């Protein structure tokens, strides 16, 4: 039984209180934390098959090693987040093995195929950077002690993934010709994909309590700005064009395309020409999941039942 009302707990948290166990949580806090951790765990888990399929395109044994090291990190991060959920009374067994593929809460970006080495390294450069923006903010601000400690490792390793992405993006950009053209095509679909990942703009966002409970520190729009503030200069420095620029007057990065807009997953192309759509339409697309959803989910759990039956 929680010793606090919702308002009392929020006030204590504003004063710097760190929660260490579920007994201290109000129902609202527990629910918001479970939502946050489920998204985190599912995202880490689904990045693994996305990167694993793409790692087949690694051009050398060295690159195979780094790609698989990243996959191993992602699985460990997922495992740790699901373990934290278990301590909140949520079954990892159900989350990983009991849900339908479309019920996972990872972003739409990890329902897409990564079809070549360039797409894998841009995923490291863009998607893992989004992970660092989001989880780095959680690490600095979260009021849940066990999560804060777990994120020390996660932050350290995601920084390596990002470096891997940046180094390889630089190599491909310097090469020119086909390599640079391919890199630009990756950026064209993966830049808006990551922008959308940060979710509803602040003026449309319902109050979720995540900020009041200090489960995170920055809003969706602020996090999107943080991501752009490093991604846009990186791409510009590599001679890659991105549909965003820094507006000095507004002192922020602004998008140069209708946001949000529709995506054609088969062609890997954003339909800028069709104009802005509603966030309701975006949520429908997310709910319908992307082309690799079932394949990725199946790939992380297909042998569970047969191995369990051998052991009985």
């Amino acid at each position, binding site marked *: 039984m929680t010793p606090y009302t919702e308002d009392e707990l929020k006030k204590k948290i504003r004063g710097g209180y760190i929660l260490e166990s579920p007994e201290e949580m109000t129902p609202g806090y527990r629910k918001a934390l479970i939502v946050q951790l489920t998204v985190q765990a599912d995202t880490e888990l689904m990045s693994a098959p996305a990167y694993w399929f793409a790692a087949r395109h690694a051009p050398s044994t060295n690159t195979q090693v780094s790609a698989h090291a990243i996959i191993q990190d992602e699985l460990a991060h997922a*495992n740790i987040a699901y373990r934290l959920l278990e301590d909140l009374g949520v079954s990892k067994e159900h989350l990983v093995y009991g849900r339908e593929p479309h019920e996972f809460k990872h972003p739409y970006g990890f329902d897409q195929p990564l079809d070549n080495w360039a797409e894998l390294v841009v995923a490291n450069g863009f998607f893992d950077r989004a992970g660092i923006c989001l989880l780095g903010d959680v690490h600095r601000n979260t009021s849940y002690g066990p999560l804060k400690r777990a994120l020390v490792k996660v932050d350290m390793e995601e920084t390596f993934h990002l470096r891997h992405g940046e180094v390889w993006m630089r190599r491909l950009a310097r090469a020119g010709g086909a390599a640079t053209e391919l890199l630009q095509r990756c950026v064209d679909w993966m830049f808006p994909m990551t922008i959308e990942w940060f979710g509803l703009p602040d003026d449309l966002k319902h109050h979720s309590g995540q900020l009041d409970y200090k489960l995170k520190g920055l809003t969706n729009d602020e996090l999107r700005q943080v991501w752009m503030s490093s991604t846009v200069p990186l791409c510009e420095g590599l001679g890659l064009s991105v549909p965003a620029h820094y507006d000095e007057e507004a002192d922020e990065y602004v998008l140069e395309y209708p946001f949000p807009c529709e995506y054609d997953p088969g062609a890997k192309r954003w339909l800028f020409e069709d104009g802005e759509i509603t966030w309701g339409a975006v949520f429908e697309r997310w709910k319908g999941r992307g082309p690799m959803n079932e394949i990725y989910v199946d790939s992380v759990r297909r042998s569970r039942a047969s*191995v369990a039956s051998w052991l009985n």
Partner: protein
Amino acid sequence: MRTGLDEGVYEVFARKSRGEPLRHIGYIDAPGDELARVYAWKTYDEENWFEMCVVPRGAVIPVNRVEGPWAKNVPEETPGS
């Protein structure tokens, strides 16, 4: 239903180098002590640890705190003691 893949929780402790404190760095689920050692070493590979050990969660007995993951391990008081 229990299956051969059922796992228990282990607490993971490690120290970076000689002279450093042994710190609680996380947790791992494993079906037994041997695999807990392997999983902990492979999962928490972010440092080149000088020392790492795992402890079954059920073996940690809290001294002063009555809530948290180890609370249920508080020994029942023996009548008359």
